[in-house]
């Protein structure tokens, strides 16, 4: 029987707190007709989980890499402005900025060439996933909801969280799980219960935050780049289904996206078993 003194804090920090904060903000902001409340609520849900999980270690001025997470959250909210401007070319510079904040604490040990390469590749990946998800998301807050973007986000973030908790960093895994919960609450609960639409701005904020967490995992916790690429591939599910020239059924997209996510979790379990577990 799992130890409740370990499970309960985990559920509180990574499930209850982000869900409650995200839901409360959506109700408070009355997000029915505006684009910004949903991405802000998602970011706030993750921030609340971050503070609940990390408060004992956080320091200001920032000392270790994860101390910079509040700045990453602020930068990610820049996606609202990018989508509002209608200039998708601004996605890459914002992604580069987020990747740079994540990667620069490793400059001393990894060397400038490796860090620059990491920043560039992480940013390109984030931009590609943001574009894929934004393409699938409804543009207007009052447009009919599409469950596919938040569902894909929740699935990828949740799967990443599980894989990280098993094989790399439990702390970063908890935060990925919290992001998945916040995205799910913001995008999947019925509109009559929670207003707002998971539009391109929400897609941008959520992808930048997930990209930042996976970048932390890759650079600082040896989470394989192959695993990151597999998770990113899940976001291709909706564009691939759209190529069939019929409205992409959300269930078909979800099933297709689940394949690489399950592969990542399976590989993490195998790695844990190979190392004998602890």
């Amino acid at each position, binding site marked *: 029987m799992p130890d409740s003194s370990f499970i309960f804090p985990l559920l509180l920090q990574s499930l209850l707190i982000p869900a409650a904060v995200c839901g409360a903000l959506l109700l408070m902001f009355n997000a029915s007709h505006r684009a910004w409340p949903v991405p802000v609520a998602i970011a706030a849900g993750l921030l609340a989980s971050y503070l609940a999980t990390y408060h004992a270690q956080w320091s200001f001025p920032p*000392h*270790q890499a994860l101390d910079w997470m509040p700045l990453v959250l602020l930068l990610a909210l820049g996606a609202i402005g990018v989508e509002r401007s209608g200039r998708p070319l601004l996605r890459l510079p914002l992604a580069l900025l987020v990747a740079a904040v994540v990667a620069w604490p*490793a400059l001393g040990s990894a060397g400038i060439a490796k860090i620059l390469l990491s920043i560039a590749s992480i940013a390109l990946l984030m931009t590609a996933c943001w574009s894929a998800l934004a393409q699938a998301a409804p543009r207007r807050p009052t447009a009919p909801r599409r469950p596919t973007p938040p569902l894909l986000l929740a699935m990828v973030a949740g799967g990443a969280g599980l894989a990280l908790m098993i*094989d790399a*960093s*439990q702390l*970063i895994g908890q935060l990925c799980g919290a992001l998945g919960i916040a995205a799910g609450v913001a995008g999947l609960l019925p509109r009559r219960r929670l207003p707002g639409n998971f539009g391109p701005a929400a897609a941008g904020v959520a992808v930048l935050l997930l990209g930042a967490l996976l970048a932390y995992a890759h650079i600082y*916790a040896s989470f394989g780049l192959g695993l990151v690429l597999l998770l990113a591939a899940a976001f291709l599910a909706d564009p691939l289904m759209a190529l069939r020239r019929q409205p992409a059924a959300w269930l078909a997209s979800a099933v297709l996206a689940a394949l690489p996510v399950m592969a990542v979790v399976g590989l993490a379990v195998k790695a844990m078993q190979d*190392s004998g577990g602890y």
Partner: protein
Amino acid sequence: MNKALLSRLPLSSLALASLLAAGAAHADNAFPAGNYKIDPVHSVAYFEVGHAGGISRFMGRFNDMSGDLVVGAPEKSRIKVDVKVDSVDTRNEGLDKHLKSPDFFNAVQFPTLSFVSTAVTLSPMGEGMVAGNLTLHGVTKPVTFKLREVGTGSGPKGDTRVGYVASSTIKRSDFGMSYGIPKATTDEVDLRINIEAVKQ
């Protein structure tokens, strides 16, 4: 001294005489003064913590260690030790990976654990203290180690070697490593550094 005289001496005097004799014997085997380099093959740093809230004592080691010693009068003695955090070894790959992650040591951002002494005191019996600054997880704090001289002699190539053991207890939260206290591991960590150094 004859047996009759010995039997009349108080126990405390006998004890004192024994100590002085042992000290004299230790002094006869005094550690040669000079500059030494730590032998990375025969030196190792250990850590020991309480696991799962203190159910048991769990030990790990760091395999990659380097540094310098200056052996001589106390005011001239110095110890500098550098340990590669990436060399942490608990005999379990998964646990090693977790320890190197941001949850614990954050080895990518803080690749080195180091100690630089500021003061060394040693009794004629070869026991004492070494005070200095320990840098762990990017945080530097003053720490005092108990120091014990183990021995001195010639190595296989005829080189002069000295051996020490230094031990201390720290709180990992003092160095910003607070994750999982106390359910994963305890805050208190016992450190032990076994040093063998070669005279230069």
